[in-house]
């Protein structure tokens, strides 16, 4: 019994501990590689973003054709008040309203309508020549060939 104990100095617990540490190493390595790959991909993405060629800024140059002047150069627009209709109070007399209506009717004098012109008519159609029916077709001749299959006549469709 004591001999057997001396033979193997590593207990199962020791083996389990070494195995557990190895597993930890594996998971740690997995995590490390994953993080490293992610950071690498992020770096390459950043590099790509930096490397993307951007066009140089365009400066405005005077053109040979006339252009619309910028708004700043324009003088201020003068805004005038628009004429509005005179206000009519609802309490005003009907006579005064009629008077206003008469005045406006006087101002709108329509011109006299000229008389309607005669409508032009179409010219008569030319006379067509009289219809002559075509002559009837001649009767079909019976075939003189007696030999062969015989009777193979096309009737047409």
């Amino acid at each position: 019994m004591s001999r057997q104990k001396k033979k193997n100095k590593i207990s199962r617990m020791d083996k389990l501990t070494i195995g557990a540490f190895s597993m930890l190493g594996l998971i740690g390595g997995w995590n490390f590689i994953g993080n490293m790959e992610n950071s690498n991909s992020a770096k390459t993405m950043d590099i790509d973003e930096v490397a993307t060629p951007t066009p140089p800024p365009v400066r405005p140059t005077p053109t040979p054709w006339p252009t619309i002047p910028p708004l700043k150069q324009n003088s201020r627009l003068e805004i005038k008040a628009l004429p509005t209709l005179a206000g009519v109070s609802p309490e005003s007399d009907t006579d005064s309203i009629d008077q206003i209506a008469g005045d406006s009717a006087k101002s709108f004098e329509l011109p006299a309508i000229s008389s309607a012109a005669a409508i032009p008519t179409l010219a008569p159609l030319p006379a067509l020549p009289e219809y002559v029916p075509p002559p009837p077709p001649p009767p079909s001749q019976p075939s003189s060939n007696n030999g062969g299959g015989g009777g193979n006549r096309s009737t047409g469709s």
Partner: protein
Amino acid sequence: MLSRKTETSDNNKQLLLLISGVGGSFLLILFFFLASVIMNEGNAKLINLAWQEFSGNMPHSVQIILAEQARAMSIPLLSGSHAFWYIARAGGILSYFLLWLATCWGIMMSSKVIKGYLNFATAYALHEFLPVLGVIFATLHAMVLLGDTFIGFNLQQILIPFKSSYKPLWTGLGSLAFYLFLALVLSSYLRKQLGQKSWRLFHYTSYLAFLLALVHGLMSGTDSHALAMRTFYLATGCVTLFLLYYRVLAYTPKSNRNRLTRSNKRGSQINR
């Protein structure tokens, strides 16, 4: 006294059995759950639900950190996820590290560098256990690649060396290293059947296996372009080379050793 000892050992055994049973069933459920997730993308909803249940009592800041990390690790494991590629890479590096440790440990044991610092039995048990763990992680490294769509490996490309569409020579060397390490691990369990001499001769191929793994990692590893990884490969290679050089210098054949011990004994008898 004896009965109490046996009682405690029985209790320990039961506890260990219980822990391994619960842990095993948990892992089995987790495996089937992950497999079903990989098979059916619609199960992402289930993961979201589980996450909502799990993160219900957490502070908001912790939830944000966890979600950020999960996003970086490409969790959940869906069919188009990058997570498989990340796991494969991490598994490969870890496997290489464990196999390097095992190789160095073996050289240090045989050259007796650790003599006086560590019990031989403990050192030997560690030397036996580290490659097993390394091979397990190498298997994970290879199998996880099946779920990845980044390169799109299939089982044939993974199992048969030099059949891969991605850097066939360097990935093929990795496959050979894996098979060699697997054979070395199995040979240590069949040491009695193989015989000491043939086992020892076969054990020398571990240097070749390590070299193949190093070249595979350096030439086909996605992270090999990083300075840190190059330094890591260079450092591990140099340490192994240095230890091997030391081992060759410190090596004395068995006949010489016997002669030396005999002369030492004679000297001590004369002195007496």
